[in-house]
């Protein structure tokens, strides 16, 4: 009988626990709408009860359940750290799946099911970590909170936002680890992994064009369609000014430090020019997609996506409405943003702010970010941690008092290409090695950070 080390035993236990928990979660249909996250909360509750860990289940509306649990530090020297996630998943088109989207089966080492990547995988990892820390009886210096929100995919009104407004004491952590980062990226031969420290705000704008109505058999001047053409042209021609917010500055600085040479010079040029300049950044050794992504992260953006207008083939409409997806940098005032877009379209259209949003950012100079870096250095010494900012989309801005870091690390592999279309797509699945890798990472991070 071969002997195994305690570390190997821990590794195997975390791996098996996370896989089993993920399979269980994937078998619960929590598609939103309607969500019905209560079945996930109840299922997690039975797991916690077996381990004698207390929990709270709270509902913003019937079945829209969030479960929160806490391992208490006997004599805390710091505020809590939170493992956060959400149990709702986006809808599926089962006919386009090779397997039942709620089967949770393992085929060729991939666990299949809606939510495997977004984000029941991380919820399962978080839960496995919580159980391991409890079983180990570690002497905590800060509380460890496990939280699985409802209603992330549809905006958080019945989840994070409601909990923050009504049950803040349950989740009042100093730091949290969340979805959103952890993808490996190779730049000019160097390995980076992004930690999402900031998010742009996702503002919904309404662009309304008006004009003369009439019968379509007789062309008129000054119609809504004429103004629509002008407004769309102006929106597309807009070169939104380059703004480098702190997390992006930190990201560029970490790239410069690793890459050196031309890349470093260009980044320095961009960071020192006043106003900041896109031109040197556009010459960085990045793919076209990466450049576009960087472009979007260095300015506010507006993208028209939906058109509503016209009722009959023979009637010139007096009004056409275009929904515009606006993304604002952290710190941007929503009204100032609306006014800027109004100036862009001028008298061709009226811009209204339907849903104002502000971004969020967490400090890159924090003990938690340092702990993430230290854990990464130990597990993957050749990979460089790089702060990133997403273009918006998680629960992080809804709990503004918590410094949220999006990090679910994947080891570099050709599986990243497989994953790319799966989030919100068909045949969503995660490889058991990747799930185990991230679970081990989160365990080591929390076991260290919450005991130091």
């Amino acid at each position, binding site marked *: 009988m071969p002997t195994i080390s305690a570390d190997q035993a821990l590794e195997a236990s975390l791996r098996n626990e996370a896989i089993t928990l993920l399979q269980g979660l994937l078998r619960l249909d929590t598609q939103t709408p309607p969500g019905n996250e209560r079945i996930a909360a109840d299922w997690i509750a039975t797991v916690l009860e077996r381990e004698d860990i207390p929990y709270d289940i709270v509902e913003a509306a019937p079945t829209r359940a969030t479960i929160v649990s806490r391992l208490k530090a006997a004599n805390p020297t710091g505020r809590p750290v939170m493992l956060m996630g959400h149990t709702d998943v986006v809808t599926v088109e089962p006919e386009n799946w090779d397997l039942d989207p709620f089967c949770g089966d393992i085929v060729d080492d991939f666990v299949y099911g809606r939510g495997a990547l977004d984000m029941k995988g991380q919820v399962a990892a978080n839960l496995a970590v919580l159980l391991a820390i409890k079983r180990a009886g570690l002497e905590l210096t800060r509380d460890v909170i496990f939280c699985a929100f409802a209603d992330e995919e549809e905006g958080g009104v019945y989840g994070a936002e409601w909990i923050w407004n009504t049950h803040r004491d349950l989740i009042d952590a100093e730091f949290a680890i969340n979805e959103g980062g952890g993808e490996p990226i190779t730049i000019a031969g160097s390995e980076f992994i992004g930690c999402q420290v900031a998010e742009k705000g996702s503002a919904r704008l309404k662009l309304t064009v008006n004009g003369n109505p009439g019968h379509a*058999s007789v062309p008129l001047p000054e119609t809504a369609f004429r103004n629509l053409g002008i407004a769309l042209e102006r929106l597309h021609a807009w070169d939104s000014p380059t703004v480098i917010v702190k997390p992006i500055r930190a990201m560029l600085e970490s790239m410069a430090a690793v890459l050196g040479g031309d890349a470093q010079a260009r980044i320095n040029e961009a960071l020192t020019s006043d106003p900041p300049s896109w031109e040197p950044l556009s010459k960085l050794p990045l793919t076209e997609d990466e450049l*576009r992504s960087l*472009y*979007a992260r260095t300015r506010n953006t507006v*993208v028209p*996506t939906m058109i509503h207008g016209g009722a009959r083939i023979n009637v010139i409409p007096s009004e056409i409405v275009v929904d515009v997806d606006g993304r604002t940098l952290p710190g941007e005032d929503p009204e100032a943003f609306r006014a800027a877009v109004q100036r862009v379209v001028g008298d061709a259209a009226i811009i209204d702010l339907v849903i104002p949003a502000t971004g969020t950012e967490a400090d890159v100079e924090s003990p938690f970010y340092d702990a993430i870096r230290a854990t990464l250095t130990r597990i993957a010494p050749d990979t460089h941690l790089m702060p990133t900012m997403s273009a918006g989309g998680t629960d992080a801005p809804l709990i503004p008092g918590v410094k949220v870091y999006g990090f679910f690390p994947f080891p570099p592999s050709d599986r990243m290409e497989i994953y790319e279309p799966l989030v919100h797509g068909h045949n969503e699945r995660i490889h058991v090695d990747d799930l185990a890798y991230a679970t081990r990472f989160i365990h080591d991070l929390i076991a260290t950070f919450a005991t130091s």
Partner: protein
Amino acid sequence: MTDHRSDDALAASIGEAAVEYLAALVQLDTTSPPGNERQATDYIAAVLAAEGIEATVVESEPGRANLVARLRAEVPTGRPVMLMGHTDIVAVERDKWDHDPFGGDIIDDFMWGRGTLDMKNQVAGQLAAFVALKRSGLPLTRDVIYAAFADEEVSGTLGAGWMYEHHRALIDAEFALNEGGGGQVEMGGARFYTCGTGEKGQSILNVTFRGNPGHASTPIPDTAMEKLGIALERLRAWEPDLTITEPVRAMLEGIGDVLGGNAQAEIPAHPRPRIAGLGRLR
């Protein structure tokens, strides 16, 4: 030989009949879709039967009925003339009406109801005229056809178009009187009545823009929306060639003949029209 007194009496009797027919037709809900024009053709067929006129009613689909009747010339010297119309009407928003859109009530000498202008009015008027012709026993030199079609408002594929395709012999007239003209226009102190002699075709075009799809958080080039903006701008800037067709030439010449002077001079006398000249016609 004209007897003015009997002329007035005839006009009054035709007018009274038209009002009676119109009220009855308005009270039949032939909103299209679904149309259900059978109600109207049953009524018209009964009116005609009482006058000893046999009507042919054919349905393109259940309920979508077209009616045709004919007064025959004993020894025709020309091909038929047709009084045509449609009995279907467009939908109503009842909450926006001051009176029942299917009441046919007469208030301050106005008859209220959907179809009183489009075009049960003309269907009723033509029916009254048709009946009067029959009663008069005038010796016809060509057949007079009365036609009430279904499905004009939506497409005509179950009405006039279907009849022309499947029962052309019933409606094979040389000339027809239809809706579409009869409005008055004041120009240069003269009053003109319009008579619709031509119609433009209506082509429904689909313009498709294809572009790069992607997540809206990141702007990308060559999107469908961007192309839409460009295309709308180009459509707006397009100045189609001025073309004067025969009916429009006849209209302009008719105006020129009455108005004389500058107006007449601006009417194109040769086939190279200038919009600048026509633009001065007010």
